[in-house]
């Protein structure tokens, strides 16, 4: 064993476990928190199975998201990232749990706290970071920035609070129209939950039985306004009135996964929309311009970190059930750190978009057109 351990710590190239796979428990059953339900006879299961492979994958994904966001924090403070930057650290279990319950052929849309979802939907850390730094290698070629990242079956990244909700229902309408059994996961925050267009959308989604899962990521604060100061009813999972709802522990990736599976089954059976409230927490302020401590205490933040951190919870579960070793998880941490470093290196050295790209992509599938520059003699070219 000692010899094997020394190989692990010397050579990072080969993934070698300190113990053989046969030493680990391949799967275990976990007791998870029961979800409050609304207009439902039964809710998600409270006993769930997680395999070792699943656990390792969730751990790696959440750790990647966490480190990616922390690196973005660093780059923002160095003024290499500018403008808006809304970080997701603390909420990782939501994105990972949801994705574990749906397929890449399903659809997802969210608001501006979108880096995590861009990653789980298939964007690479490299392209996400290069978009944040506004480089040509960014996922939107530097044209979109933090709030406007897109990839297949992921419709951003949307800057206008609440506007993404009707969009998500529209994607679901397209799924139903095309008869493809796909669904759309449509996310919004506790702040957005009071937007009128969301209630218009609830009405049409229920009326037309659209295959949409509405998910309210309730992190307790809409910018600097706590939920108690913004909403007459903070039971966000009930706000759909005639749409069934589930309230979920958003810090537990297995809770999120189980509830999302439950919701996806409901949707795919043709019953129409369903609403999930994920109770979660963001460690950072609303954005990088918000220190996040004027409307909540440092003690509160620290308490969540020590008692409910999604990555720590998963790690404890895996270790105490003999599903992985400390070294193995540390190894993943090392790999993740390297991936983030490489991505940051790319994101800080890749050149900015060429000026020739300024006017491109206004239209899709369009002949080239001339665009007026800042003065009448400046005639710029735009291609699709």
């Amino acid at each position, binding site marked *: 064993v000692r010899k094997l351990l020394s190989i692990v710590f010397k050579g990072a190239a080969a993934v070698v476990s300190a113990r053989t796979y046969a030493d680990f428990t391949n799967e275990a059953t976990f007791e998870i928190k029961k979800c409050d339900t609304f207009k439902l006879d039964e809710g998600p299961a409270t006993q769930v199975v997680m395999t070792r492979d699943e656990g390792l994958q969730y751990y790696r994904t959440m750790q990647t998201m966490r480190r990616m966001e922390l690196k973005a924090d660093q780059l923002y403070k160095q003024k290499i990232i500018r403008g808006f930057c809304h970080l997701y650290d603390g909420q990782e279990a939501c994105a990972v749990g949801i994705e574990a319950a749906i397929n890449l052929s399903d659809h997802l849309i969210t608001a501006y706290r979108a880096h995590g979802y861009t990653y789980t939907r298939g964007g690479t850390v490299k392209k996400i970071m290069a978009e944040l730094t506004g480089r040509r290698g960014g996922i939107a070629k530097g044209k979109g920035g933090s709030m406007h990242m897109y990839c297949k079956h992921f419709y*951003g990244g949307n800057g206008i609070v609440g506007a993404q909700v009707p969009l998500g229902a529209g994607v679901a309408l397209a799924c139903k129209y095309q008869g493809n059994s796909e669904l759309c996961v449509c996310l919004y925050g506790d702040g957005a939950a009071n937007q009128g267009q969301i209630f218009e959308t609830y009405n049409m989604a229920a009326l037309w039985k659209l295959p949409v899962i509405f998910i309210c990521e309730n992190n307790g604060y809409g910018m600097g306004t706590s939920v108690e100061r913004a909403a007459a009813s903070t039971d966000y999972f009930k706000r759909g009135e005639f749409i069934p709802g589930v309230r979920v522990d958003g810090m537990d990736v297995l809770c999120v996964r189980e509830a999302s599976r439950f919701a996806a089954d409901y949707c795919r059976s043709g019953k129409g929309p369903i609403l999930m409230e994920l109770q979660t927490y963001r460690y950072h302020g609303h954005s990088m311009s918000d220190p996040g401590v004027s409307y909540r205490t440092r003690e509160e933040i620290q308490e969540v970190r020590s008692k409910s951190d999604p990555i720590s919870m998963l790690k404890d579960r895996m270790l105490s059930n003999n599903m992985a070793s400390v070294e193995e998880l540390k190894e993943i941490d090392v790999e993740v750190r390297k991936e983030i470093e490489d991505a940051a290196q790319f994101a800080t050295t890749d050149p900015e978009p060429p000026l020739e790209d300024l006017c491109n*992509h206004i239209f899709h*599938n369009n002949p080239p057109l001339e665009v007026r520059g800042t003065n009448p003699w400046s005639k710029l070219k735009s291609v699709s």
Partner: protein
Amino acid sequence: IQAQFNVTVRDALNQAMDEELERDERVFLLGEEVAQYDGAYKVSRGLWKKYGDKRIIDTPISEMGFAGIAVGAAMAGLRPICEFMTFNFSMQAIDQVINSAAKTCYMSAGLQAVPIVFRGPNGASAGVAAQHSQCFAAWYAHCPGLKVVSPWNSEDAKGLLKSSIRDDNPVVFLENELLYGVPFEMSEEAQSKDFTIPIGKAKVERAGSHITLVSHSRYVGHCLDAAAVLAKEGIECEVINLRTIRPMDVESIEASVMKTNHLVTVEGGWPQFGVGAEICARIMEGSAFNYLDSPVTRVTGVDIPMPYAKILEDHSLPQIKDIIFSVKKTLNV
């Protein structure tokens, strides 16, 4: 000999939608009263009966919601026609038109297209007063990422709506309620299922040598009427029908001005920051400026909210006599 038929603008729009619904199963229509009521202005008459609930969808009164749903459907591969009962109600949904539809192709660097048409009656009607009479041509034409189309006659309506539906980008299609019932001659060519008119190209409706009149929608007709009166006095007007507001066919206007040396713009919308104002700026910046023998004249709606009483309403919008007066002033005759 070309067989000519008289077709109302309403029927021309109906034909365009019918043909495009048949041609491409991704096309669908949604809006208030479009299905079972046959359309608030009967533009979609018969379509629900023919195509059913899946393709012709009645919505609740939720402009922001259903416009967003339409944009989302376009993002996911369908080709929606989103009807606003009038464009006045589009203000409820304008964020979805601009921020979700118009800007997305650019923000995504071409990854996410939004093939959608927003259509409905625009501008003044008759006696519907201030909140129901605004012209939105200038508002929408201000924004990159949108195409803004404003047909006048039946051929325009049919050909341009078909092109708009086939375009892979967001198009704001401004109709006019007062024109719906007006019959126009439609050529045999225009009756073909493949008849389209390109977006972004103006049409010279009447050739002339003394002065250029540029207009869009209903006022093209007013310009032609004014031109007929002026011709009796020996003044020959060239009348240009813009057809598209954005992208504007400035070249056609310039070519005409270089011939006539005088320009009058005519629109129903308010003067400040309007379509005529844009034409003035573009002419000044371009090659035609040096051919002008007098400054450009704008004929516009009066700079007030629309009143109700008929005599007041009539005096809030350009009349033929206003166009004739402005032409003579511009020509200094």
